[in-house]
């Protein structure tokens, strides 16, 4: 079983709202919902402690996910403080954003030399394609969030999990772009993610087959910087885990502090295969780099 060393802690993630979400999406790989409190909120002191530790380790960027991060009552404050340390990205479903939060964040980003990125999850370009996955009425609610972000001067990255046939990809992307422009987002940004066959998605479609594993031979000439575990860790309320995808796996929990979590990780999960196949699936496009030639 191949093992991947952390070359450097570039991306520090925070599972800031645990598995708590106001939505219950049919493809959620950690089954987030209003009642799933397997992972809880990170308190502000925990975030601060890890931000302080991250300076010594030279962390380049910070990412916040959940659940829905904006269910956290101190989310705005967390982002404001993070922008003093580095660039911040927050992954949201866009349905609970409030004007006063966005005004505070707009001002904080203007004061910072760093970008604040919003990634808004929408899984179809219409209510008909999105709502069966994310829930009744979520398309319109998320789109209101997108337009609110645009009104405040942000350029949200619409993030869609590929729940369609890959052969339809060009059409789906065109429909997304056309819809966003028509609704008033003049220069839409889009990130398409592969689905992860874990959690709820395992029931919606299927789990990983036993053959879907990364082998030593596959990594021989592979550019390992494409793998999340090569340059990331995530803080949860249970401790520091290897990556945002595997937090529920017992072997993903690596330690109580960042310093304790820097050891290599064995790629023995099906999701590692998806990461290997697609590369850099969790990063923003501005932080990805092309694979080195094999």
């Amino acid at each position, binding site marked *: 079983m191949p093992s991947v060393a952390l*070359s*450097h802690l*570039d991306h520090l993630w925070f599972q800031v709202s645990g598995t708590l979400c106001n939505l219950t999406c049919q493809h959620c790989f950690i089954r987030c919902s209003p009642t799933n409190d397997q992972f809880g909120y990170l308190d502000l002191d925990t975030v601060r402690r890890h931000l302080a530790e*991250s*300076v*010594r*380790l*030279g*962390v*380049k*960027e910070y990412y916040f996910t959940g659940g829905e991060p904006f269910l956290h009552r101190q989310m705005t404050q967390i982002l404001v403080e993070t922008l003093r*340390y*580095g*660039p911040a990205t927050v992954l949201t479903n866009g349905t609970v954003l409030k004007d006063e939060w966005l005004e505070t964040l707009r001002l904080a*980003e203007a004061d910072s*030399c*760093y*970008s*604040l*990125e919003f990634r808004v999850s929408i899984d179809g370009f219409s209510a008909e394609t999105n709502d069966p996955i994310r829930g009744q009425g979520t398309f319109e609610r998320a789109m209101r969030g997108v337009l609110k972000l645009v009104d405040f*001067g*942000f*350029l949200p990255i619409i993030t869609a999990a590929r729940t369609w046939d890959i052969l339809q990809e*060009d059409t789906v*992307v065109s429909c997304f772009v056309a819809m966003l422009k028509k609704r008033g987002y003049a*220069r839409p*940004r*889009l*990130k398409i993610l592969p689905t992860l066959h874990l959690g709820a998605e395992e029931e919606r479609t299927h789990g990983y087959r036993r053959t879907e594993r990364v082998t030593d031979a596959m990594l021989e000439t592979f550019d390992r*910087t494409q793998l999340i575990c090569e340059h990331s860790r995530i803080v949860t309320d249970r401790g520091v885990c290897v990556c945002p995808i595997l937090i529920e796996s017992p072997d993903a929990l690596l330690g109580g502090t960042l310093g304790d979590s820097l050891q290599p990780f064995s790629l023995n999960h099906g999701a590692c295969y998806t990461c290997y196949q697609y590369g850099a699936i969790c990063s*923003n*496009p*501005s*932080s*990805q*780099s*092309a694979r*080195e*030639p094999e």
Partner: protein
Amino acid sequence: MKQPTERIACFGGVYSNYLALEAALRDAQRRGAERIYCLGDFGAFGPHPNRSLELLRSSNVIAIQGNYDQSIGHAFADCQCGYTDPRDNHFAQLSYDYTLAHTNEDHRAWMRSLPAQWRIELGPLRVLACHGSPRKMNEFLWESTTSTQFLDHLVTQYDADVILATHTGIKWQRALSGRRRFINVGVLGRPENDGHRHVWYTMLEYAPSEGLSVEFIPVEYDAGRLAREMVAERLPGEFVETILSGYWTTCLEVLPSKERRRGKH
């Protein structure tokens, strides 16, 4: 004995804009640059790639290899620029195929022979010149997505007082701990997505009394002529628009939000 002032000029991303290169070389020599460094990406975007290459080589510019030059040199399938968006990749491929088809084998052999990094002495300062970052040739280090502690880590790990890079296409610099510094030296190939036609290079000067000073220098050139030549070579209209308007029309999806908001697309 009093140490003399040392002055070096640095730029990246020529992108076949030989007219801007000509203007920048003239300007750097006029300002007394003792050495001139190019941090890679000689081709792409513009017309007649051999013209820039002939100029670079005949002017004794000290060059390092960028991802584009590695690709063209070895005739790889693409430029390794790291775009993630299908539209960006479409235009990058048009440009790459044109550049590969119009670059002489002699220049390609020269590109293959270039180092990926240079160590430069500027007074007592240890300067490391690279293309994207010291650890990866095609890594994007944008101003708004690169923390100061990460840059501190790089200068420490690579034993440098100053790191010079390019690759993103937009100049910037940041002071680091211990009077160290990171500088993205900018590019000559296309404007900076700010509505101005001029392009940029960087002059670094070390004087014993003053220490290091860094000046970003705008370069005016005949953008209209370049645009006409691009049209004649049937390069995409989107590229021509960038040269004339100063706004990026492609490679947009890799921009972080702060850098993208400065443009109009």
